[in-house]
């Protein structure tokens, strides 16, 4: 199809360029957050993330040494000399000033006339010379505003803060809570659904078509309807708010898709295999465990990925069935929403928290994309 008549090379270029633009547009927001999670709070506040790869112009307020100890007399005048950065790391000065009204009044190497014979010289490497009368060169050191260029710098400190130290913001507990919710909530529905799907696909009984229609209908029932009745039920049964409740809820909500996906897949398996097994005297239970289950692995994997992503990323079900006021059972989505409230402008915290929560699903996504796509294609009602 690449060399067919009527296909112009110009069009090929246009296609390539527009796809590049679309991909960039789709990636840009995520990259912004990812880059921000490796910057310090000061850097994030100083410049947009897209400038993170270029040196940053920053103005620092520094002071010379106090004249009392270090001033030297040269004729009538007193002089203080030294390096403005003290013992700190030396950087290259791009501009400087002695008044907060004009912090970049002078270029490095220039001399500032501060009136009445007092003068100040600052060089590129930070060495300075401050001269004036006995009166002028006394008390505290001279205040200097220095514009320095900071090389692009990235740090892992945010991740250390969010995962190890970090006090209230620490997300590692929420991470394990999310994991705790996810594992049973992914596996239990598969157990139930696989048996039901087999019955719906390969067993003949009255009412089968009706049950399949029932499952298709439940596929789209908004789980919002289930919140209060189930919470009431859980409270009445004594389950209350907790892991058991959220596992059960996720199992219930995941079952329609699980049954639907698995039934469609199982119904497409070759009839001969199953009938041969029947003729050879295999029971339904044997056919199911020995033949159907191993053959259905791709569909099982598809659903498992869906359910995993959905339970990992879920907020509403966890809010209603799990998270209580003790804060011991918070999940990551809930934790991030809370951080949005308390750390609203602290992007280093938010960005890092978001990426900790996104790391596992993104890894699953890129490793198992094949199964995910297959599941999507089978799962949409055609």
């Amino acid at each position, binding site marked *: 199809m690449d060399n067919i008549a009527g296909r112009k090379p110009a069009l090929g270029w246009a296609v390539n360029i527009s796809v590049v633009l679309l991909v960039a547009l789709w990636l840009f927001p995520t990259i912004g957050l990812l880059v921000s999670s490796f910057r310090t709070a000061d850097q994030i506040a100083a410049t947009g993330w897209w400038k993170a790869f270029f040196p940053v112009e920053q103005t620092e307020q520094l002071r010379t040494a106090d004249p009392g100890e270090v001033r030297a007399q040269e004729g009538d005048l007193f002089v203080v000399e030294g390096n403005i950065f003290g013992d700190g790391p030396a950087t290259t000065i791009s501009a400087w000033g002695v008044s907060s009204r004009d912090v970049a009044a002078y270029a490095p190497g220039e001399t500032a006339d501060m009136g009445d014979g007092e003068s100040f010289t600052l060089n590129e490497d930070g060495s300075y010379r401050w001269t004036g009368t006995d009166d002028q060169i006394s008390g505290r050191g001279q205040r200097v505003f220095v514009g320095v260029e900071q090389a692009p710098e990235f740090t892992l400190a945010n991740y250390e803060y969010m995962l190890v130290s970090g006090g209230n913001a620490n997300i590692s507990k929420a991470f394990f809570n999310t994991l705790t919710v996810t594992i049973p909530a992914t596996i239990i529905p598969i157990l139930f659904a696989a048996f039901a799907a087999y019955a719906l696909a390969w067993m003949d009984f009255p009412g089968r078509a009706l049950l399949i229609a029932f499952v298709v209908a439940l596929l789209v029932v908004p789980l919002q309807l289930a919140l209060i009745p189930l919470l009431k039920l859980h409270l009445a049964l004594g389950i209350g708010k907790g892991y058991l409740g959220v596992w059960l809820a996720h199992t219930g909500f995941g079952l329609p898709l699980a049954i639907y996906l698995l039934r469609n897949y199982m119904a497409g398996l070759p009839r001969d295999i199953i009938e041969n097994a029947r003729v050879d005297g295999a029971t339904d239970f044997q056919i199911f465990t020995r033949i159907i289950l191993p053959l259905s692995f791709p569909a099982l994997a598809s659903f498992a990925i869906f359910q995993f992503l959905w339970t990992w990323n879920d907020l509403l079900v966890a809010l209603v069935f799990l998270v209580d006021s003790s804060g011991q059972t918070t999940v990551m989505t809930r934790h991030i929403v809370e951080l949005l409230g308390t750390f609203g402008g602290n992007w280093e915290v938010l960005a890092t928290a978001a990426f900790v929560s996104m790391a596992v699903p993104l890894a699953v996504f890129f490793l198992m994309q094949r199964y995910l796509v297959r599941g*999507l294609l089978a799962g949409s009602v055609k």
Partner: protein
Amino acid sequence: MHPAIQAVLTVGVAVIVSIGYFYLSNVFLDRVLFPARGPNAGRNINRANLIRPWLFLFPAFAALGLYLAYPVVETIRLSLTDRVAGGAYVWAGTDNYAQMLGDPKFWEALRNNFFWLLIVPAASTAFGLIIAQLTDRLAWGNIAKSLIFMPMAISFVGASVIFKLVYDYRPAGEEQIGILNAVYLALGGDAPQAWLTIPWVNSLLLMVVLIWIQTGFAMVILSAALRGIPEETIEAAIVDGANPWQIFFKIKVPQIMPTIMVVWTTITIVVLKIFDIVFAMTNGQWGTQVLANYMYDKLFRANDWGVGSASAMVIMLLVLPILVWNVRTARKEMR
């Protein structure tokens, strides 16, 4: 005990119990209830086979009934009752619905949901179709698709954080760190805008988040559909001198129309239930309320189960046409 250990134990128990149930119930059926021997062996085998499907179906359908079907009925009941002190319920007739219809916030939510329904499925499907077509014959098309599909793995909450940074606002004069304001100023905007507080614009910006997520889904499905189009139809069009635009709009799109409908309705259902994005980004302030968040507000903040259930019924009512359509197409296919 660490909850993660508890989770692993639960999985183990669940696996053993469910396999045990299926195995033992089958054994019970075949050996004890209707043994395939003795004078009635033939009749017993038939009876056992009549019952067996229900053994397989029981756990799943019991869970479905309890966790999805029963709540629908219970929600209808709750929407028609009021809770009174002491945990009792009194019949309220349509009071809750009347109260809801008199609440301006409800109409705001309904109106916003309407625009979400209008814009998000259309935009996601359109973008998905365009990208599917553009990447179809591209050497690096699979990489491009995979990257555009990626937001699918990101939670709505994570996406909200991502886009909050995009929409971030700093007062005029300060360095803008939100790329939207930076671009806006670079293109000649007069002052940085607090985007999420400007009515209408903020709703559109929230929709962008969902479009960003759902486009990948639309793209994957439509891309498979485009590949499924018979080559002959396209070759015939080329022989007849059709240009690429005509091939796309007159040959390809009509052939994948059923798939486009599927994508459209699937995204429509996602939109009807949209909650997390609004909850995390604006919490319904500044005129961005939507039905699901309104319902959450009523149920868990105002503790008004009656009105909350009534608004849940509104969502159910909006889903109903799609539910019926889905069941009908599924049944047509089964035949």
